[in-house]
């Protein structure tokens, strides 16, 4: 629909490769599949943990020109992302403080609608106030 205009990319950083892939699949389905979502989960050797190399590749692959919003699952994923971002000062990246699944879905839907990087990050962060019941 808006092929000419790049949308904000999303990187999901989880300690679990399966969790990152699952959340990426869910967010893609809900948002209609038009946003680039990269799953960066697990360590380089496939165990539970996070990988700076995967996050780095994710940032590169997710950026189609409108910047990238990164969602970490648990606290120590934040350390990995921050370490990577220190080495990439020129990137348009926002690390969002958001619930992982809800934030991924809200951010991706907002990106699919063509919102800018700040609005996409805000949608992720507002997800913590959304009630399920």
């Amino acid at each position, binding site marked *: 629909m808006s092929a000419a205009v790049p949308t904000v990319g999303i990187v999901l950083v989880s300690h679990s490769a399966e969790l990152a892939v699952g959340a990426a699949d869910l967010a893609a389905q809900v948002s209609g599949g038009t946003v680039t979502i990269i799953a960066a989960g697990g360590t380089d050797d496939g165990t539970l943990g996070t990988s700076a190399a995967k996050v780095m590749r994710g940032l590169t692959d997710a950026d189609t020109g409108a910047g990238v919003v990164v969602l970490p699952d648990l606290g120590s994923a934040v350390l990995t992302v921050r370490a990577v971002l220190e080495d990439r000062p020129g990137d348009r990246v926002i690390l969002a403080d958001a619930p992982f699944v809800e934030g991924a*879905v*809200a951010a991706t839907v907002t990106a699919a609608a063509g919102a800018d990087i700040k609005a996409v990050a805000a*949608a992720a962060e507002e997800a913590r106030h959304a009630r399920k019941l």
Partner: protein
Amino acid sequence: MPESSEQPTVERAITLAGDLHARPAGALAVAASRFASAVSVTVGGATADAKSVLGVMGLGATSGQHIRIAAVGPDAEEAAATVIVILGEATKVGE
């Protein structure tokens, strides 16, 4: 609700043909977000911002329920019409 003369308000309603699951809620939020108008979705006594996928999912709207759409803003007419079409399409049985 008070409204200013330059903010047209358009209200529409539809009866859901299926449950408002994650995918239709996402389609609704993506579509609503493309309009400048504020768009709200009301089911029973609960109202959500149509541009918030989590808010729309949180309504827990099910098949047969009556949904009211209110759009307020410069493109209210088109926004309400688009949202109604999506609600009709996306919640068809089988989704």
